């Protein structure tokens, strides 16, 4: 048996299974989205593109789209910024391997927490009456701040939890990546009179461009799946201030309306938008990294 045939044969079952599962559910969603099914009544009609056309005029959908985009940008950039800052700081200040490993271990804990658990912990921390954060705010004379109930703060407050979990995790990854870099270019930069921040801005981080892009993509995909975190912390509120597309689809299809056809249409649109967006980002990222 040739190598190629072997590879093909061993891949077929797994890919077949995945394709079937993905295709069936997508096809099902497409099928639903072309009708006006609801959970309330058994009868339904075929309505064609009506659901999609309505979506484009749905202000709440547009709001959810905007929140989703904001959520992606804030969490991805926030995570990377935190990771880069912390990793460089630790790389420069903590030289003893023991301390570094202890820090890394501590930084891994948040991401190991189930998201729902993290959400509850932070809901408590954010609490206006009992929360530690508001207690600290009180000491410096601000607050109480309604972190989760203030529409202008809620999204950021939830994003902080996500960035706390993933930023610290990525810090560990980046620190390990920094440690694998050859010392010589860094020393050459030292001799070239580069200051510490210049060494990282011009030498080490550009050397890590490829991994950084990969991390950004991983985080972007991961951020799409933040339903549980947002659901537990704010449930999409206050109002629709933290209602991302998946939360809205959930509200529409299962929670309130039971309008599963409408929700399906939304999911299909979400699928198309993310696929297109990620293809473009992926291509651009690859070009930029090379």
């Amino acid at each position, binding site marked *: 048996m040739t190598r190629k045939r072997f590879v093909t044969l061993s891949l077929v079952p797994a890919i077949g299974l995945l394709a079937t599962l993905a295709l069936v559910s997508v096809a099902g969603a497409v099928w639903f989205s072309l009708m006006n099914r609801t959970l309330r009544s058994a009868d339904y009609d075929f309505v064609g593109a009506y659901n999609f056309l309505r979506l484009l005029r749905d202000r709440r959908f547009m709001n959810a789209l905007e929140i989703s985009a904001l959520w992606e940008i804030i969490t991805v950039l926030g995570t990377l910024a935190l990771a880069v800052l912390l990793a460089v700081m630790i790389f420069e200040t903590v030289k003893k391997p023991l301390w570094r490993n202890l820090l890394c271990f501590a930084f891994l804990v948040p991401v190991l927490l189930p998201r729902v658990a993290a959400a509850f912990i932070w809901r408590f921390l954010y609490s206006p009456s009992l929360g530690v954060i508001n207690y600290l705010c009180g000491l410096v004379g601000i607050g109480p701040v309604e972190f989760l109930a203030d529409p202008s703060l809620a999204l950021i407050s939830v994003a902080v939890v996500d960035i706390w979990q993933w930023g610290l995790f990525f810090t560990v990854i980046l620190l390990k990546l920094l440690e694998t870099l*050859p010392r*010589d*270019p860094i*020393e*050459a*930069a*030292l*001799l*070239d*009179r*580069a*200051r510490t921040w*210049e060494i990282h801005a*011009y*030498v080490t981080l*550009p*050397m890590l*461009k490829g991994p950084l892009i990969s991390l950004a993509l991983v985080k972007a995909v991961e951020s799409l799946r933040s339903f549980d975190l947002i659901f537990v912390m704010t449930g999409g509120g206050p109002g629709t201030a933290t209602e991302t597309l998946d939360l809205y689809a959930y509200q529409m299809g299962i929670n309130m309306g039971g309008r599963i056809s409408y929700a399906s249409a939304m999911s299909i649109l979400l699928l198309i938008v993310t696929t297109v967006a990620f293809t473009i980002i992926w291509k651009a990222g690859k070009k930029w990294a090379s």
Partner: protein
Amino acid sequence: MANISCTDIVKSYGAHPVIEGMNLDIPDHEFVVFLGPSGCGKSTMLRMIAGLEEVTGGRIVIGGTDVTTLPPGERGVAMVFQSYALYPHMSVADNITFGLRRQGIARAEIAPRLAHVAQMLGLEPYLDRKPKNLSGGQQQRVAMARAMIKTPKVFLFDEPLSNLDAKLREKLRTEIRKMHLQLKTTTIFVTHDQLEAMTIADRIVLMRDGRIEQMGSPDEIFERPATRFVADFIGTPAMNFLHATMQDGHVARAGNIALRLSPTDFPRLRPGQNVELGLRPARMKLCPEGTPGALTGTVVLVENMGAEGQVITDVDGHEMSFTTPAFRGLAIGDRVSFAIDPGHVHAFDPQSGHSLREE
């Protein structure tokens, strides 16, 4: 341009000393080579002068300024690494000018300086390329350009040619030497290759286990090795060593071998004293059998080196080698005689390894 002076330099990693009290003075314009076997502390010494490694004790002065605690960028040194250490994501031009840009020098001033060094090192066609698209030799030239453009007080090279093939190594060695003749910048060059050291150095600092074994011009090191270690380290093929006992008439005898030593070079040798003789293969000549002072043995192996050949012989149970252009007439098992001028015989104390020669 500057002289370098290192006083009582000590370096240890934990309890393990790597450099044990080095004293070194390098005058302005000199091209000094740190030579020694791997792990003897050459790189450590160089990196302490560069400021990449802290000294455990001692003082380093460059051009009259005590730089012992200054950061690397403020010592006025430029270094070329064995790995080239180019910034991989920057173009050649950006690599070369990075240091000047960090010093805040105006672009208008950088451009002509870049053009000058690029022209000197033949890098003009490659200025827009990334390092990974260059050959090893070209990358090393970029590293040299990056050092040169800063017009430093001191150049430091850490085995810059070790990753190149023999031909290119020779070519770049010549270029480095020419560059030094032109710029006259004080230079320290680290290598473990004795031939490289001999060809390039004004002065060789031969190191062993964190100490200076001998310091001197290539000729001094070659002709007047201070210790057996130096004699053994320098020269290819390696020196022949022979344990012998002194007899009357300044003759050293080992079994049937008897060699007369020069009484002016070794006035203090006494009959009965044990010595270790050192005979350079290149200083021995084929001679007719029976010539006074000649060694006679049978050929064990002949190694063709092109113009000359190394003949390894068995002389009275001792393996001795010599080089001769007339090696082509010799075959394994032949009886050969070869002689050495008494002026070229070295003698060392068997215990301490120090040379017994009096200056």
